[in-house]
C-alpha cells in the first residue's frame, strides 16, 4: 500500500518533472558546463574549472552592477512593501466602495506587460510626450531630466513600484482576509483601536505573506533587466554593466562571451541565494526574539 502510494505520487509528478528537467535542469546543466569553459575570440575553447567564477567575483563591472541593484533594492523594496502592507491593512479594515475600487486599480498594473509599462513610463518621463517635466517646470523645477545619470535609477524604481505594489498588496490582503475574525474580535473587546489591532494583531499574523512578497521583490530586483534595457535608447545612464543581468546579456549577445556570461549569471544566482537566505534567517530570528 505504501509503495503503491509512493508510486502513484511519482506518477502524478511525471509531467511536472519532465518539464522541469527539460526546461530548467537541462539548460542549467548545459549553462554550467558552458561556464566551466574559457572561450576567447582568438584561441578557442578550453576547460578551466571555475576560473570564470573567480574572474566574475573580482570583475569591477559585475561588482558595480551588483552594488547598484543592491542599493536599488535597499531603497525601493522597503518603500514598496510599506505601501503594500499599509494599503492591505487599510482595505482590509475599511471594505468601502472606494477601497474596493482602489484594490482593483492598484492591482491592475500587474496585468500590464513589463515591456509595455516601460514603454508607457518612457513616454511619460519625456518632456515632449509626458506631463511631468512640463508641470515641474511650472512649479519652478527647471530642467527636470528623468533620464540623467543621477535620476534614472529613481525613474526605474518608480516603474517597479508602480508595477508591483498592488500585486504585493493583494497577497498581503488575501492573507488578512484569511484570518479568522475571532482573533481580533477579542482585541476589539479589549478596547484596542483599529490601528492598534492592525499593528499588534493583524501584522504579526500575516508575517509570512509579507516575507513572501519581500522574497519575490529581492529576487526580482537582483534580476532587473527589462526596464533599463528598453529605455536605454533614451539615456546614457545604462552602461554596459548597469545591472548584473544586463551585463550578462551584453557579454553573451554583444561580445560573444557565452561562457563568461553563463558564469556571471550563476554568480548572480548565488548572490540572490545568499541574500534570500540572509533575509529569511534575519526575519525569522527577529520574529523569535519578539
Amino acid at each position, binding site marked *: 500500500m505504501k509503495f503503491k*502510494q509512493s508510486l*502513484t*505520487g511519482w506518477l*502524478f*509528478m511525471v*509531467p*511536472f518533472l519532465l*518539464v*522541469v528537467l527539460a*526546461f*530548467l535542469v537541462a*539548460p542549467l546543466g548545459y*549553462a554550467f558546463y*558552458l561556464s566551466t569553459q574559457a572561450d576567447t575570440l582568438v584561441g578557442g575553447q578550453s576547460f578551466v574549472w571555475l576560473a570564470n567564477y573567480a574572474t566574475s567575483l573580482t570583475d569591477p563591472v559585475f561588482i558595480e552592477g551588483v552594488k547598484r541593484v543592491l542599493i536599488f533594492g535597499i531603497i525601493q523594496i522597503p518603500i514598496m512593501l510599506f505601501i503594500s502592507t499599509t494599503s492591505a491593512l*487599510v482595505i482590509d479594515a475599511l471594505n468601502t466602495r*472606494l477601497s474596493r475600487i*482602489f484594490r*482593483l*486599480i*492598484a*492591482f*491592475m*498594473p*500587474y*496585468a*500590464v*506587460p*513589463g*515591456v*509595455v*509599462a516601460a*514603454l*508607457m*513610463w518612457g513616454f*511619460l518621463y519625456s518632456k*515632449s*510626450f*509626458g*506631463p511631468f517635466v*512640463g508641470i515641474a517646470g511650472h512649479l519652478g523645477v527647471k530642467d527636470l531630466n528623468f533620464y540623467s545619470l543621477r535620476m534614472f535609477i529613481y525613474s526605474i524604481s518608480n516603474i517597479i513600484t*508602480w508595477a508591483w505594489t498592488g500585486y504585493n498588496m*493583494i*497577497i498581503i490582503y*488575501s492573507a488578512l*482576509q*484569511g484570518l479568522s475574525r475571532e482573533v481580533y474580535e477579542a482585541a476589539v473587546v479589549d*478596547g484596542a483601536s483599529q490601528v492598534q489591532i492592525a499593528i499588534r494583531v493583524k501584522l504579526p499574523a500575516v508575517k509570512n505573506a509579507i516575507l*513572501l512578497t519581500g522574497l519575490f521583490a529581492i*529576487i526580482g530586483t*537582483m*534580476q532587473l*533587466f*527589462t526596464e533599463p534595457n528598453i529605455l536605454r*535608447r533614451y539615456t546614457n545612464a545604462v552602461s554596459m554593466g548597469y545591472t548584473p*543581468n544586463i551585463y*550578462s546579456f551584453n557579454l553573451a549577445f554583444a561580445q560573444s562571451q557565452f561562457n563568461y*556570461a*553563463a558564469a556571471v549569471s*550563476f554568480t548572480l*544566482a548565488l548572490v540572490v541565494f545568499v541574500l534570500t537566505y540572509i533575509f529569511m534567517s534575519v526575519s525569522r530570528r527577529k520574529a523569535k526574539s519578539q
Partner: protein
Amino acid sequence: MSNSNVKTRKSGYLATKSYTANTLMIVAIGYFMIPIVWVIVNSTKDNQDLISTFSLWFPKKWHLVQNLHGLLTQDGGLFAVWMRNTAIYSISSALGATLISSMAGYALARFAFRGAKLLESFILGLVMVPATALVMPMYLLFSKVNVVNTPWAVILPSMMSPFGAFLIKVYVAESIPEEILQAARIDRAGEFRIYWQIVLPMLKPALVTVFLFSLVASWNNYFLPLVMLSDNKLYPLTVGLTSWFEQASQEGANSLLFNLVIAGSLIAIIPLILSFLFLQRYWRGGINAGSVK
C-alpha cells in the same frame, strides 16, 4: 492606557482615519491610473499631436479610428497576427501549466512519497537563476531538436510553474480532506479518476488562480520569445511592439510608429485587465489559500 481614554478618542479618530485613508487612496488611484489614462488619451492622437498637445488631454482632431486602422494594416496586418500569437501562446501554456502543476501539487499534498521535500527545495533553488542564463543554453538545446523559431519554443518552457504547484499543494492540503479520497478508493475508483472527477472540480479557485497567473507570466514574457523567434510573423505582442518602438525611435520619418506603439499598448493590456476583472471572485480565493501558509 485606560479604557475610557480610548473610548473618547475612538469616534473622532475613526472619522479622521477614514478621511486620511480616503484621501490617500484617491491619490494612489490617480498614481496607478496615470499611465493608463495617458495611453488612452494618447491613442487618440496622431504623431504631430503626440508631441505638440498637452499629454494628459484629448486632441482637437481625434485620430483614434485612424490609429486603430493603421495598427491593423501596418506591415500587412502584423499586429493582428501578434495578438493572435500572444493569445495562442499564453492560453496554451497557461492551460498546460495549470494541468501539470495541479497534478504535481496534488501529489505533493496527498501522497507522502520519498524525496518530496528535497524536490521542493531543489526546484525553489533553481528558480533563482535568472532567465538570461537559461535562454542561451535552452536555445542551443532547442536548436538540436529543431524547435527554435517555432511556437513550441515559447509555449513549452512556460508550462513550468513551480509556484503553481506549491499553490495547489497548499490548497489541496487545506480543502480536500483525506477522507473523501479514502472513500473513493474504497469504491475502487482509479487514482486518475479520483483526481479528474473529484479533486479537480474541488480545486476550481486554485486552478483559476494558477491559470491566470501563468497566463500573465507568458502574456508578458519578453526575453524568451525575443531570443527564440526570428520570424516576425511568430512574434507575440511584447516583442512585436518593442520592435516597432525601436523602429520608431531609430528611423524617424521613414516609419514614425509612435502612434501605433501607443494604440498597440492600449490594445495589448485590455484582455488581461478584463480577465482579471471578470474572474476576480475565483482568483482571490486562490491567492488566499496560497498566502496563508
